[in-house]
């Protein structure tokens, strides 16, 4: 960025886009310079993903102009966008489970002559790309379906890198990455920008924006409210105000002391899942928030899924309030009062084509029903209460879940268990993709649930969040508990030190 | 290759007792279409019963199929197994001609039943019902009953329309009607099944408010046709059946039904085929003919069964 007035690589003016009755974009401008990291910010549902999808040829804008290297262009298809040199990492994972890592990376631009694949060459190039992303240990021939969500994100990133691009758009790439992974990502981003490649970066984590961003554009309710702000000159509070229109204190709620006589609600004794973890024991008391800190792939998800019965334990015992659960039975867990908000909202959580309220009441519709007859108005009422409590947008219980923005979809899962009312709540990445404003609400809500006596386990790839929200923390690596501490005893560096030592050993 | 199946020695034109007497044990392969309706079921059962009743016959029955490809491989299997004779009711005469010829060339006499091969060299003997004749008989009967009414409404419910035998029947029927100035006014094909007959007939009755005569090609589907007629409460016409099931003959005998007559189409052809195969394999001839060998082609008659002569045919009728 030595030039005083470099020509923008991409210039967007007055973009609008309507979905049925929803006006997703109402006039958005954007100007991206070569070699810069341009951050796009906004609340859940503001229109960020819609904007980038019009740039990558997925959606066609209703109005507005797009200029690429000074010339007005149309982007009628993803192929056209890729042809221009725009590669995109979408917010929703866009990998093909049945193909290998290398095959996913080169999907659509295979390493081939005359249609015949060069498998070895593809694997070799893929390996180089993975190594560049700090994942040299992943085998390029491994099937993507066996990877964790975080690793799938890496594949998606490698795919974007494998293209000959001038602009890479990243829609919340860090949402499922842990601190180490994010640093990896930033390293790659810096590498790209130093080669003159521009990056459009979307994230709800303000610290990240500070660290990696050059300029910021803000969208609110489908409209540009600020363009090309200089990162260094814009205080955090102002950003939040521009996004939300109000002030949000991004602090974790006060901890309330757990009463000394609070009973153990969830007891995990010598739990074992062959191939993942063994002899795991811990317990959670009523009103306690237990955080799982660790890196991606540390098996935290597997642990909660096994507690929940979604995976069948190969040994050990889970009990709730002294009542023993049947291994591998979700029903037994739910009946005992456990709820799980799963890690992958699309594949494990939502019925995308069903309306919000049916998704919210997926585990409670039987309760609203009388002798097998549904009471949909009661369901809608209950759903609406949670929609209001969580500021879910749009606040229309009838809207199909598919049409919600990513962060709002996440809120549906929380709402489901809030309606259910549980004694034990397992939250796997509950704030993934949730904006700052709503995040604060969710934190408050989780704390309120705990205060009301719910035992909570929370997994988050943001160590800060785990530490800030929990009463006690388990530091987990490779399915083993490295340390059990009260949250105030340890800080982010402490956790990372433990984990690094653990994996070195 | 005409004599390849018959062997070289002179057949012994023994007496009928002589033919019945057990001879050398012979293995006969039988393959026919899927027994997906009553008449074919009867064909199969009769052939199997015939095989069981002959002590010196080991009858191998291949899976009934409507797939020429599968039936060809069954015949190939019979050839490999060097059976003494093959009785073949082809899914499609033309499609099985090549493999039947192959069997004949391998010295295995083939007895072609019901659906004729496209080459005479493919079979040692052919035994056929007369499909064209069947249609003619039905048409002639209707002409006889309605001859004086040139504007009479005649309806036809054939079986599976895509089969050549259906075409032959319909052609015979149309030709016979032409001679008395009638034609087919409504034609709704069924599929040889009871349910198909019912469905076709109820559609037909709705389409034609007044009918004088119906020819239904098959008595098994006829059961459904009659159920539909009963449902519609119609009786202004008479009906002629086909094939000659026991149920149909009982109704004809009873005289209460719209079913006045049925045109016989023997369900014992394959059983006859088994008998002929045995004779040929054992190098015997047909006792009741002067001819010293089993004839090359036997076309069975298609008589009309009415209340007048039903008692004569009831004993050989098949119960569908």
């Amino acid at each position, binding site marked *: 960025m030595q030039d005083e007035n470099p020509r923008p690589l991409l210039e967007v003016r007055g973009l609008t886009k309507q979905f*049925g009755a929803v006006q997703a974009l109402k006039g958005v401008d954007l100007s991206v310079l070569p070699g810069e990291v341009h951050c796009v910010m906004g609340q859940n549902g503001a229109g960020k993903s819609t904007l980038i999808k019009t740039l990558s040829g997925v959606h066609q804008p209703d109005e507005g102009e797009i200029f690429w290297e000074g010339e007005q262009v149309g982007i009628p298809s993803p192929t056209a966008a890729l042809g221009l040199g725009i590669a995109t990492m979408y917010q929703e994972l866009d990998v093909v489970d049945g193909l290998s890592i290398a095959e996913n990376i080169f999907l659509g631009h295979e390493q081939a002559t005359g249609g015949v694949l060069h498998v070895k060459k593809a694997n070799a190039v893929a390996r180089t790309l993975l190594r560049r992303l700090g994942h040299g240990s992943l085998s390029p021939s491994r099937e993507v379906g066996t990877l964790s969500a975080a690793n799938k994100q890496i594949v998606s990133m490698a795919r974007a890198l494998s293209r000959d691009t001038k602009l890479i758009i990243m829609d919340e790439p860090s949402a499922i990455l842990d601190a180490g992974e994010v640093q990896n990502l930033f390293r790659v981003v810096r590498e790209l920008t130093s080669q003159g490649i521009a990056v459009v970066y979307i994230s709800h984590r303000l610290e990240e924006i500070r660290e990696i961003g050059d300029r910021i554009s803000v969208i609110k309710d489908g409209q540009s409210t600020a363009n090309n702000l200089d990162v260094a000159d814009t205080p955090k509070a102002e950003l939040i105000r521009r996004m939300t229109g109000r002030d949000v204190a991004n602090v974790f709620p006060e901890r309330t002391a757990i009463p000394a006589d609070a009973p153990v609600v969830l007891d995990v004794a010598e739990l074992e899942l062959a191939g993942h973890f063994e002899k795991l024991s811990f317990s959670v008391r009523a009103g306690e928030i237990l955080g799982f800190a660790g890196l991606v792939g540390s098996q935290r998800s597997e642990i909660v899924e096994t507690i*929940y019965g*979604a995976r069948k334990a190969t040994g050990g015992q889970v009990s709730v309030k002294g009542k023993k659960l049947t291994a591998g039975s*979700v*029903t037994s*867990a739910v009946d005992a009062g456990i709820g*799980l908000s*799963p890690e992958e909202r699309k*594949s*494990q*959580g*939502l*019925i*995308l*084509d*069903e309306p919000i309220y*049916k998704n919210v009441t*997926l*585990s409670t*519709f*039987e309760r609203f*029903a009388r002798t*097998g*007859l*549904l009471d949909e108005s009661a369901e809608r009422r209950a759903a609406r209460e949670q929609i209001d409590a969580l500021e879910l947008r749009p606040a229309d219980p009838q809207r199909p879940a*598919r049409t919600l923005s990513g962060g709002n979809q996440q809120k549906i899962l929380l709402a489901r268990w809030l309606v259910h009312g549980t004694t034990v709540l397992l939250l796997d990445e509950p704030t993934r993709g949730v904006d700052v404003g709503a995040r604060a609400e969710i934190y408050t809500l989780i704390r309120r649930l705990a205060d009301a006596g719910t035992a909570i386990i929370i997994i988050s790839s943001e160590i800060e969040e785990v530490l800030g929200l929990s009463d006690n923390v388990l530091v987990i690596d490779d399915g083993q508990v490295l340390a059990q501490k009260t949250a105030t005893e340890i800080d982010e560096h402490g956790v990372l030190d433990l984990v690094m030592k653990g994996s070195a050993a | 290759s005409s004599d390849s199946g018959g062997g070289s020695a002179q057949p012994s034109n023994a007496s009928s007792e002589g033919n019945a007497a057990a001879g050398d044990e012979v293995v006969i392969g039988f393959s026919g279409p899927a*027994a*997906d*309706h*009553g008449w074919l*079921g009867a064909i*199969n*059962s009769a052939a199997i019963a015939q095989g069981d009743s002959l002590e010196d016959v080991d009858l191998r029955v291949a899976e009934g199929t409507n797939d020429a490809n599968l039936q060809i491989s069954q015949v190939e299997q019979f050839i490999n197994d060097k059976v003494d004779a093959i009785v073949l009711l082809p899914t499609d005469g033309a499609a099985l001609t090549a493999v039947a010829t192959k069997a004949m060339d391998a010295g295995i006499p083939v007895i072609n039943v019901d659906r004729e091969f496209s080459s005479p060299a493919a079979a040692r003997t052919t035994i056929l019902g007369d499909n064209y004749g069947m249609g003619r008989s039905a048409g002639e009967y209707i002409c006889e009953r309605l001859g004086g009414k040139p504007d009479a409404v005649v309806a036809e419910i054939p079986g599976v*329309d*895509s089969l050549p035998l259906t075409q032959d029947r319909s052609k015979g029927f149309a030709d016979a009607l032409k001679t008395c100035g009638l034609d087919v*006014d409504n*034609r709704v*094909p069924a*599929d040889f*099944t*009871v*349910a198909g*007959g*019912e469905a076709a007939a*109820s*559609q*037909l*009755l*709705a*389409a034609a*408010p007044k009918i004088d005569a119906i020819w239904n090609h098959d008595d*098994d589907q006829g*059961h*459904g046709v009659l*159920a539909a007629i*009963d*449902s*519609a409460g119609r009786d202004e016409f008479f009906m002629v059946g086909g094939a000659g099931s026991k149920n149909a003959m009982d109704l004809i005998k009873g005289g209460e039904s719209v079913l006045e007559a049925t045109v016989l189409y023997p369900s014992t052809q394959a059983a006859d085929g088994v008998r002929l195969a045995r004779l040929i394999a054992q190098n015997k001839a047909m006792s009741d003919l002067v001819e010293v060998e089993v004839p090359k082609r036997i076309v069975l008659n298609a008589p009309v069964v009415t209340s007048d002569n039903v008692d004569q045919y009831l004993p050989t009728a098949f*119960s*569908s």
Partner: protein
Amino acid sequence: MHGPAGRSLGLVVALVVLVLIGLVTSGDRFTSSENMLVILRHASIIGVLSIGVTFVITAGGIDLSVGSVLGLTSVVGSLTAVQAAASESTWLLMVVVSLLVGAVAGLINGVIIAYGNVVAFIATLATLVAARGLAEIISERRTLLVTNTGFTKFMRADFLGVPVLVWIFALAAAAGWFLLNRTTFGRRTVAIGGNLEASRLAGIKVKRHIVSLYVLVGIAAGVAGLMMMGRTTSGTSTHGYLYELDAIAAVVVGGTLLVGGRGTIMGTVLGVLIFSTLTNVFTQNNMDTSVQALAKGAIIVLAVLLQQRFASGKMRRAKKQPLKA
């Protein structure tokens, strides 16, 4: 109800067009109440079957065995022994026996699919073949006559000028609609078809529900078998031959998604009526079977295109998954 109704609109239009064609080409003969009853009676058996099939397809499954289970129930229901016992007690015995046979066949399908993890297509294909074989063995490939007059009288009777068969169809449609849209059973069905894993993680007893779905469609096949026995006064292994294809076609033309997650009983009923009316119009016009086949193929595609045009709200989604059968 606005969504499904909107989607059904295209089908209603298709049906109206067909009726108009019938009217123009065959006039009063076509619109006579007798002819309407012919269409409805013809539709009723496939109709009941299709309503059952709607449930399994909505749940993301498939049942290829319905036709041959229909045949099997008709054979067992009209066995001499059963009819003899029925004539000593009540013809309802035949009903009970047939429904039981259907339910057991469905139970076997369901258990193999839910607990054996065999894909539904294969499991029910196996049952298709096996049930047909069993029906042939039991019936010795004969057509069994239904002689119990209590049974045939009831099944072939009219009630308020409408045949009992059509009443059964109407009742099955109403019950199916209610079950799918107003009960927890229906909600579970849609949820499982929409996202099986999410349903399981929400605490729904997925396997048990899948089994009950196949039992349900088995019972529907039993009811259809009884209707067939009434309509043809016979039971045979050939009853219901290839009905599975007709039923699936009606369900899918009706707008139920073959991948699961969306089902419409109203659409299924319209789908069945369209096919039944089509056959009737063809016959009224004394059309050649081969030409009928050619026309039918074209009309199926047109009906679906028409339906899509009217369900425009859903069009984008459909566009994204054209291949998903």
